[in-house]
C-alpha cells in the first residue's frame, strides 16, 4: 500500500476514525489499534514478511529485558550480541549475501580461480533496513543504560512498526518515540492541521516534482549512450531533485500522518539543497540516519577525538557504511566514498561546523557568496548522485566521462530540454516555496502566520490542483522503499 494511493487514503481515514472515536477511551486501545493497523499496512506489501517483522520485534523485546535483568557484564554482552547478531544477520542474508558472494567470486577469479557462488533468490523485505535500525538503537540504548527496557510488548511493537515510519523511516529512537507511545494521546487540533499541511506538501513533492523528474532522469540514465554531456548533466540534476523530493516527500507524509495520531516523529530533512557546504548538507540530509550512524558508530569509534588518521578513518567508515546501508552495490559505496572526500577537507581545516545556522536568516535572498556556495554544494551532490543512480560503476564512469566531454557545451537533447521547459515552472515554484519556508520544519509550516484563511486555502487548493494536473497516472513507489 503506497502512501500515494487511493487505498492508503481510505485506510488512513478508517484508522483515524477508529483511533479518535473508538480507541480514544484508553491508551491500551489506542496502541492496540495502531499495532493492528501497522501490521495490516505491512501485510499489504507482503504478508509473509510480517512474521519476520514480528520475530525481530519479539527478539529485541526479550533481549532488551534480558540485558536489563542480567547481573554481570558477560551476560549483558551475550544478550546484546545475540540481538545484534540476529538482526544484522537477517539484514545480511536478505540484503547483502548475494553481493558478498558474487564480489568474493569476482575477486577470486582475478587470481585465476573460478568459483560459482551460491546465490539466494530472495526478495528484500520492505523496510527491513529501517525496522532493524529501530531495534538496534533500542538494544544499544538499553545496553548503554540510556533507557529502561520496555515491559509492555504492545507498546514496544508499536515503537518498531508504527505504520507511517515502518517502510522508510524516519529511523526513530526509543528515547524519542517510546515515551509518546506510553502516553495517552488526546486530539490536538493544531497538531492535526499541521500534519495535514505537511502531508499535502509531501504529496506535492512526491507526485508532482519527484515523479515528473523521474521520467526525465530515467530517460537519461537508461539511455545515456544516446545523449550529449549537457543532456546527461540535466538528467543528473533531475535525479538530484527527484531523490530529494521523493524521500523528503515520503518523510513529510510519514511525519504528517503521525501527527494525525498525536505522535511527533523525528525530522528527516532540513532543506539540504540550501546548504553552503557538504558538512551542512549532511546535517540536513536524511537526518535520522546520519544521526543514527553518528551516535551508534562514529562516536563509539572515537569520533573526531584522537589523531588525524583516526579522524580520517572514522569519517570514511561512517560515509562508506552509510553508502552501503542503501544497498549491496559498489555504486552506493562509491557515492559514500565521494561524499567522504568532499567532507574531508572541511574536517581537516576545522571548517565542518561553520554553517550551522539557517542560510540568509531573516533575509529574502542570499548574498552572492552564499549563492555561489549553495550552487557549488548542489553541483557536488549532483556529481555524487550519478554514482548513486547508475546501475554499475562502469556505467557511472561512462556517464561522467560523457558529462565532462565537449558535448557538455551543446544544446541538450530536445526531448529532455522540452521536458525541462514544461517542468521548470513547477520546479521553480517548488524551490521558491522551500526557500521562503526554510525556517520552518517543513516548507509550508509557517504559512498560517503569514496569510489569512482564504489565501491559505486558495494556496492549498492550488497545490491540490497542480497534483491533479501533473501527477502521473500510475502509482509510483518511493525510491527508499527498495532500501
Amino acid at each position, binding site marked *: 500500500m503506497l502512501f500515494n494511493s487511493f487505498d492508503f487514503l481510505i485506510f488512513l481515514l478508517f484508522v483515524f476514525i477508529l483511533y479518535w472515536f473508538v480507541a480514544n477511551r484508553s491508551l491500551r486501545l489506542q496502541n492496540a489499534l495502531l499495532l493492528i493497523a501497522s501490521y495490516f499496512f505491512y501485510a499489504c506489501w507482503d504478508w509473509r514478511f510480517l512474521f519476520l517483522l514480528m520475530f525481530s520485534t519479539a527478539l529485541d523485546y526479550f533481549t532488551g529485558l534480558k540485558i536489563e535483568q542480567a547481573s554481570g557484564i558477560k551476560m549483558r554482552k551475550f544478550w546484546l550480541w545475540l540481538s545484534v547478531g540476529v538482526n544484522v544477520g537477517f539484514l545480511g542474508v536478505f540484503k547483502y549475501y548475494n553481493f558478498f558472494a558474487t564480489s568474493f567470486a569476482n575477486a577470486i577469479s582475478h587470481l585465476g580461480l573460478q568459483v560459482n557462488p551460491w546465490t539466494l533468490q530472495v526478495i528484500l523485505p520492505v523496510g527491513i533496513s529501517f525496522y532493524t535500525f529501530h531495534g538496534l538503537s533500542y538494544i544499544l540504548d538499553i545496553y548503554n543504560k540510556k533507557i529502561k527496557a520496555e515491559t509492555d510488548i504492545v507498546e514496544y511493537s508499536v515503537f518498531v512498526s508504527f505504520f507511517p515510519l515502518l517502510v522508510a523511516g524516519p529511523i526513530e529512537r526509543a528515547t524519542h518515540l517510546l515515551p509518546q507511545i506510553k502516553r495517552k494521546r488526546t486530539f490536538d487540533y493544531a497538531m492535526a492541521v499541521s500534519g495535514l499541511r505537511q502531508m499535502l506538501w509531501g504529496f506535492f513533492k512526491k507526485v508532482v516534482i519527484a515523479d515528473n523528474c523521474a521520467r526525465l532522469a530515467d530517460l537519461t540514465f537508461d539511455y545515456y549512450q544516446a545523449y550529449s554531456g549537457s543532456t546527461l548533466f540535466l538528467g543528473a540534476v533531475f535525479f538530484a531533485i527527484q531523490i530529494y523530493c521523493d524521500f523528503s516527500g515520503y518523510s513529510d507524509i510519514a511525519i504528517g500522518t503521525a501527527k494525525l495520531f498525536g505522535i511527533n516523529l523525528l525530522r528527516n530533512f532540513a532543506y539540504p539543497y540550501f546548504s553552503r557546504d557538504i558538512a551542512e548538507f549532511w546535517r540536513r540530509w536524511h537526518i535520522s540516519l546520519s544521526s543514527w550512524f553518528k551516535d551508534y558508530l562514529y562516536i563509539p569509534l572515537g569520533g573526531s577525538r584522537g589523531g588525524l588518521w583516526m579522524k580520517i578513518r572514522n569519517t570514511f567508515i561512517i560515509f562508506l557504511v552509510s553508502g552501503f546501508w542503501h544497498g549491496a552495490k559498489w555504486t552506493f559505496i562509491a557515492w559514500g566514498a565521494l561524499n567522504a572526500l568532499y567532507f574531508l577537507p572541511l574536517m581537516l581545516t576545522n571548517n565542518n561546523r561553520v554553517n550551522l545556522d539557517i542560510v540568509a536568516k531573516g533575509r529574502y535572498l542570499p548574498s552572492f557568496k552564499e549563492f555561489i556556495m549553495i550552487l557549488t554544494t548542489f553541483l557536488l551532490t549532483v556529481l555524487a548522485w550519478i554514482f548513486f543512480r547508475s546501475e554499475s560503476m562502469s556505467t557511472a564512469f561512462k556517464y561522467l566521462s560523457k558529462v565532462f566531454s565537449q558535448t557538455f557545451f551543446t544544446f541538450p537533447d530536445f526531448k529532455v530540454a522540452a521536458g525541462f521547459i514544461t517542468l521548470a515552472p513547477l520546479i521553480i515554484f517548488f524551490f521558491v516555496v522551500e526557500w521562503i519556508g526554510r525556517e520552518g520544519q517543513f516548507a509550508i509550516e509557517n504559512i498560517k502566520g503569514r496569510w489569512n484563511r482564504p489565501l491559505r486555502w486558495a494556496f492549498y487548493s492550488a497545490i491540490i490542483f497542480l497534483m491533479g494536473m501533473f501527477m502521473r*497516472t500510475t502509482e509510483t513507489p518511493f525510491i527508499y522503499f527498495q532500501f
Partner: protein
Amino acid sequence: MAKFISTFLLFFLAAFLFYATVLFIWGASTDPKIKSNLDYNLGGKGHSFSRFKEIQHISNVDVLFLGSSHAFKSFDTRIFDSAGKTSFNLGTINQTPVQTTVLINRYLKKLGPKLIVFEVYPYTFSIDGVESTLDLIANSDIDARLVRMAFNTKNIKVLNTLLYRTLRDLLHLDKNYIEPIKNYNETYVKGGYSENDLVYHKMVHYPKQTYHFYDYQFESFDKIMALLKSQGYEVVLVNAPMTKDLYDCYTNNNRFDSIMNKYGNYYNFNKIINLNDTLDFMDSNHLNQVGVEKFNDFLIKLLRQKYWIGQPG
C-alpha cells in the same frame, strides 16, 4: 475534534469548488501539452460520438457487434444489410471487457440482438482500458455504471475528464455539437461502422513480444459471457484478422486461444482466413476496405453455415 471535522469538510468543499473551477478554465484554454491529466476528446477518433447518438434511435437488430477498433473497422454494417441482416456496431477504441460490461448493461435490452458477434482482441485483455473509458466519458451518456467504472480505474486522468465533462454538461456547452461524418480519414457509416480511406499497409517487422494479460479483464469477460448466456443470447467470439507479421510476433496467442475456446463458438480468423498483409490491410492490425469486404463475406458464410443467421430472402 468537532472543529477539526467541520473545518476539514469546509476546506474539502472549498478545495473541490476551486479545483472544478480551475479545471474548467484550464481545460478550455490551455495547450494540450500541459493538460496531460485531462483528455476530453469530444468527437475524437473512432466516431464514438456519432455511434452513441445513433444508437438512441436503434432497436431490435439481428446482429450486434462488440469490441475494439477491430470491431468498428472490420464489421461493415452495409455488407450485413445487403445480406439481409440488420446490425449495429458498438465497437469503440480499445474497448476492453470492463467497458463492454457498461455498454451491454446500457444497450443490450434495447437492441435485442438475435446474435452477438463479440470481437476479442488479445491486446484489449492486456490493457487497463483507460483510453476506452476516456472515449466513453467524452462521447457517450454519463450514467451510474460509467461513473462507477471511472472511479474503479483509480486514474486521475479519467476522474479529471469525468469532472470536466460534467461541468460542460451543466453549462450545456456541447449541446449543439455535431461530429463531422468524415473525421481523421474515417467516414462514419450508418450502423456504427467506420470506413477508412483506402490505403495499403507498408510492411514492418515486429520484435517478439508477449501479451501480459490482466486477470480482471478475463474476470469481466467471464461475467459478460455468463450474463449473455443467462439471458439466452447467441454469442460468437471472433479474433479479427491482423497482419501475419504482427500476429506472429506474439508468443502467447495459443494461450489466448485456449482460454477463448472454453467459451465455445470461438473463431480466430488469423488462422482461418488467408489475407494479404499489404493489400488487405491499412495498418498492422486493421483491415482496409478491400480486406473488410473479403472478411465480412467469409464471416457471413460461416455464420450461415452454422445457422446463426438465416439465408437471404
